[in-house]
């Protein structure tokens, strides 16, 4: 099927605006929709057969943003977009949204996420779609056709919508940290039990750092923060004129004036992945992370000592990243080699 010209750009523009608005509320989406008068996307004089085909293709384009690896906010935006397109279509009987069997558990998980984070308007929209029987449950996502394609278009994921591939976070999750804390406590108690003084463990038995779990959590939080900051910085730099060389970026960065900003700029130039976006739900989870670890010392403000310790770790990470093949999408041209080490 040949694509509908211009549709992908329009959808991405709308979803991009939604992402910028940094919210998942339906009212905002509806405003953006009304601004663009998106319901007119089906207009234009055409007969019923062509209209059916066009609507099918439109729904197919919109539907692909609904699944991973897109960020949470984009997926909610895609849900709203599907709802809007399904209701605004002019075909009678309405064309349906195809969902493959393998994607269904992900959608259910997504719905559970929505309910857990109390985004009740999104959950309601989804329920409305289900009630309106808007889905076709199919075996395979794409309906096959028989034209010989001139070139195979590979599915292109818009980089900005992708969730940050946050391997650190997926490894050190909430549960893992809780487990570690439990084991740590248990271990300390065991040490107390077998040592002479019942209230605290023997000096000879202290083989590990006592607060290592807390440190681990702090490092993880820092990493996340760093990622967000890097993304924000990149976004700021991208918004300025891209044809200017990095002199302007230099002044932009210097105006921040701190050593930390310089370090971030260095990391930006060496970074290997494209723009990432911290999703709204991540922020929710961050809050939970802090509160689950009891104690007021789990603040986000790292102390100096911790920072210098984690800095080499971060640097080491970046070295590895530099060695892997870099793919810069939309990055400004770096004129001179950055030799700060």
């Amino acid at each position, binding site marked *: 099927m040949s694509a509908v010209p*211009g549709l992908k750009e329009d959808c991405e523009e709308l979803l991009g605006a939604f992402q910028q608005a940094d919210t998942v509320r339906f009212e905002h989406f509806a405003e953006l929709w009304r601004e663009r008068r998106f319901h007119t996307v089906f*207009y*234009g004089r055409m*007969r019923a057969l062509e209209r059916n085909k066009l609507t099918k293709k439109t729904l197919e384009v919109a539907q692909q943003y609904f699944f991973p690896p897109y960020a949470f906010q984009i997926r909610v935006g895609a849900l709203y977009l599907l709802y809007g397109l399904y*209701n605004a279509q002019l075909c009678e*009987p309405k064309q349906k949204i195809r969902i493959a069997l393998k994607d269904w558990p992900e959608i259910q998980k997504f719905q559970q996420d929505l309910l857990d984070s109390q985004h009740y308007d999104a959950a309601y929209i989804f329920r409305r779609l289900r009630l309106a029987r808007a889905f076709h449950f199919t075996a*395979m996502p794409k309906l*096959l056709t*028989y034209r010989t394609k001139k070139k195979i278009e590979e599915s292109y994921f818009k980089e900005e919508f992708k969730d940050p591939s946050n391997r650190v976070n997926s490894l050190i999750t909430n549960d893992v940290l809780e487990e570690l804390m439990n084991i740590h406590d248990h271990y300390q108690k065991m040490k107390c039990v077998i040592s002479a003084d019942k209230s605290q463990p023997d000096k000879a038995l202290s083989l590990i750092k006592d607060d290592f779990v807390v440190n681990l959590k702090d490092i993880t939080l820092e990493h996340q923060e760093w990622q967000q900051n890097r993304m924000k910085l990149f976004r700021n730099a991208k918004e300025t004129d891209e044809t200017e060389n990095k002199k302007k970026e230099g002044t932009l960065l210097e105006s921040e004036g701190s050593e930390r900003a310089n370090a971030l700029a260095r990391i930006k130039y060496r970074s290997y992945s494209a723009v990432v976006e911290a999703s709204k739900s991540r922020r929710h989870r961050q809050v939970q992370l802090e509160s689950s670890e009891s104690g007021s010392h789990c603040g986000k403000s790292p102390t100096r000592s911790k920072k210098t310790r984690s800095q080499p770790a971060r640097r080491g990470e970046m070295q590895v990243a530099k060695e892997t093949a870099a793919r810069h999408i939309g990055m400004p041209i770096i004129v001179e080699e950055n030799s700060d080490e």
Partner: protein
Amino acid sequence: SIDMLMSSEKEEDPDVIPEDNNLLTLRIRKKVLERREETIIVDRACRQETLTYEMESHATGKRPDNPTDLIEEGELLLTVNIFYPVIFQKHKDHKPYQTVLVLGSQKLTELKDSISCVSDLQIGGEFSSQPDQAPEHISKDLYKSAFFYFEGIFYNDKRYPECRDLSRTIIEWSESHDRGYENLQSVKMEDYVFNDLSLKIGFPYLFCHQGNCEHIIIITDIRLIHHNDCLDRNLYPLLIKKHWLCTRKCFVCKMYTARWVTNRDSLAPQDPCFFCDVCFRMLHYDAEGNKLGEFLAYPYVDPGIFN
């Protein structure tokens, strides 16, 4: 309410693309429409388009009169593409096919009965000397054997006593030497429903009848039955798309579809030559019915007969 947020506030004509649009889609579409308006004199649906649309949508939403014929929830709907065996030069790039919707609980024999192929209607034999005695038996009645081939198993039609196992030849051939095809089995078609099969979507399978008329079968889609679909079991397998083949017309009158084809005809300008019934008799037989000239005549069934 939420719906009101989506729809337009004032009365709008969906046919007219509004002037102040900021959607790229609409801008492109508007240009295309304008160009079409300039170049096409009459913008009306042609026959083929009407046929395609009608076939796609004629059965949507139908409900049966008899409630026992209602299809239940959870029934699977398969979209089966059956390709024509005709090989015309113009079909090089995309072969024509017909699309049939089949229920999961239907037997393979039901699909087989619904496949309409022109080779079923052929009448064998040369009838120049006795044109009135062209027999009524068509090949479909004479040669009833057929088989499907899905995933290494041949499903043979064994409903009638004269059906033979056409797949036996193939199985014997593959077993005679070690050709790398393991485990080809042969079973009866009427014992199986589509729910029993394991199929690959998009993978070509085979339907063979009349001994050597082969059709490629591709399953393009499997999905659950939906409220808006046709829920009358009697209408399935449902034909929703058919390729329109142009029929060959009689060489003389150019109006009627050809019913006879002649070879080595001294009265005809080309070999082979097609005639409709009336022109054929008028040219080749005199008033008493005697044969004039030398020729061989065969009854002809045009592939476009199913239009």
